[in-house]
C-alpha cells in the first residue's frame, strides 16, 4: 500500500517535471516569437510618421499606407489639421489654424523632416527605418 503510493508519487513527480519542461519550451518559444515580433514592429515597420500634440505622441502611421488623419486640438476638439499620407509622402491638406503655414509646407517623406503647426502645437515628423546616415534633425 505504502509502496504503491510512493510509486504513484514518483510517477506523478516525473510527469510534473515533464510538464514543467513543456511549459518552459512553450514559454521560450513565446519569448522568441515576442522578440521577433518586437524586432518586426520596432525595426521593420518601415518609414513612419509620428504625430505629437504639445509634445505628447498621439499616433504613428506608416508612410506605406495611404490614410487621412484628423488631428483634433482645442478645448472642444474644434481645431483641425488634416494629415494626408499618400504615395509615401505626408502633408497637411487643410487646417483651421490662422496662419495656415503647416498646410503650405511641402510634403515630407525623409527621416527627420517635420511639419509644425505652432498655433495648434502639432508636430508631424518622419522616422525612417534604420536609414543609414539619416539626419538627427532637419531645420
Amino acid at each position, binding site marked *: 500500500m505504502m509502496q504503491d503510493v510512493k510509486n504513484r508519487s*514518483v510517477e506523478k*513527480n*516525473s510527469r510534473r*517535471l515533464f510538464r*514543467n*519542461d513543456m511549459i*518552459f*519550451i512553450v514559454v*521560450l518559444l513565446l*519569448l522568441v516569437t515576442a*522578440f521577433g515580433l518586437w524586432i518586426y514592429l520596432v525595426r521593420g515597420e518601415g518609414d513612419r510618421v509620428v504625430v*505629437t500634440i*504639445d*509634445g505628447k505622441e498621439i499616433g504613428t502611421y506608416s508612410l506605406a499606407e495611404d490614410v487621412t488623419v484628423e488631428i483634433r486640438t482645442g478645448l472642444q476638439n474644434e481645431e483641425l489639421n488634416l494629415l494626408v499620407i499618400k504615395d509615401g509622402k505626408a502633408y497637411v491638406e487643410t487646417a483651421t489654424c*490662422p*496662419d495656415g*503655414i503647416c498646410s*503650405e509646407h*511641402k*510634403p515630407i517623406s*525623409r527621416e*527627420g*523632416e517635420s511639419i*509644425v503647426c*505652432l498655433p495648434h*502645437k502639432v*508636430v508631424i515628423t518622419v522616422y525612417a527605418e534604420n536609414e543609414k*546616415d*539619416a*539626419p*538627427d*534633425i*532637419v*531645420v
Partner: protein
Amino acid sequence: MRKSFFRWPGICVALILLSGAVGCGSKSEKYSTYSFDYFDTVSVITGYADSQEQFDDIAESIFSELSEYHKLFTIYDRFEKMENLSTVNELKDGTHRVVTVDPRIIDMLLYAKDMYKKTDETVNVAMGSVLSVWHDYRTEGTENPSEAKLPTVGELTEAAKHTDINHMIIDEEACTVTLTDPDMTLDVGAIAKGYAVEMVARFLEEKGVTGYLLNVGGNVRTIGGKPNGEKWLVGIENPKEESEESYLAYLELSGESLVTSGSYQRYYVVDGKRYHHIIDPETLMPSEDYVSVSVVCKNSADGDALSTALFCMGLEEGMALVESLTDTEALWMLDDGTCYESSGFGKYKSETKK
C-alpha cells in the same frame, strides 16, 4: 530520480537572453522632447541618455533655463514682481522709467549693441516701433485673411524716426536700462532666441553634459557630438517643393551652432503675396533677396544675429562680412533656387551624404 533535461540549459538560454536585453538597456539611447512654451516657437531637445529618467532630468533643466530667458526677454508678456523687456518698453507718465533689471538682460543688451556695430547697423534691437507696426498688421491679417493689409509708408517712416540705439542707456554697475526716446521700444527678436540657446548650452557644458542638441525654432546648437564619437547630422530643409533635393545641405556638427533665417518660417499673405517677418532696416520692408540664409559658427547668439543681418544684406556685402569672421560660414539660397556658400562652408558638409 529523473532530472529535467531542459531546466539548466533552459535557464542558461534565459540568462543569455536577459543579459542581452540588459546590455542593450545600459547603452545610451537617443531621446527627444518638445515644448511650445518659449520664444513663440517650438523647442526640441534631442539627447543621448542611459535612461528616460536621466533624459527627463536634463530636459527639465533645459526647459527651466529657457523659461527664465523667455520671461526676461519677451516684449509681449509681463510677470508678477519681475522686470523684463516688456516693462522696459512700457511708458509711465509719457516716459520710460529707469528700470533695474536682471544682469542677464544687461549682458544681452550689451551684446546687442556690439552686434549692431559688427553687422554694420543691420541688427538693431531698438527697431521695436517699426517691428510692432508689422507685428500688428501681420497678426490682424492672419486672423482676418480677407482684410489683410500692408502698413503704409507713412506709418513705417514715422516709426523709423524712433530707432536710434544710442537712446538705449545702460548702466552696467547699477544694472539699469532706460530708453530716452519715449516713442522708442526694444524688440530683441533677431538675437534673443540665439542668445538664450547659447547661454543654456554653456550651462550644460559647465555641468559636463554632452551628446545633446537643442533646436529652438531653427536655432540649433549642438553640445558635443554623440556618445559613440560621431557628429550630429543636420539637414537644412529645402523649402522648394519642386526641387528634387530634400536638403540644401547636409552638415556634420559637434559643438557648433546652425541658425537658419527663412522667409517661409513666418509670414502673412496680402493680395496673394507673402510678406515674411524679417524686416530690412533700410527699406522697412521684408527683405526679398533670399529664401533662406544659414550660418554655422560656434556661438548660437552670433549665428542668430548674423543670419538675420545677412538676410537683409546684399550677397557681396554679406559674403565679405562672413569671410572677415573666424570660424563662421554661411549658405544663401536665392528665390530662383541658386545657392551660394562662403569659402569654408564645405568643411561642415557631410561626405557620406549630400
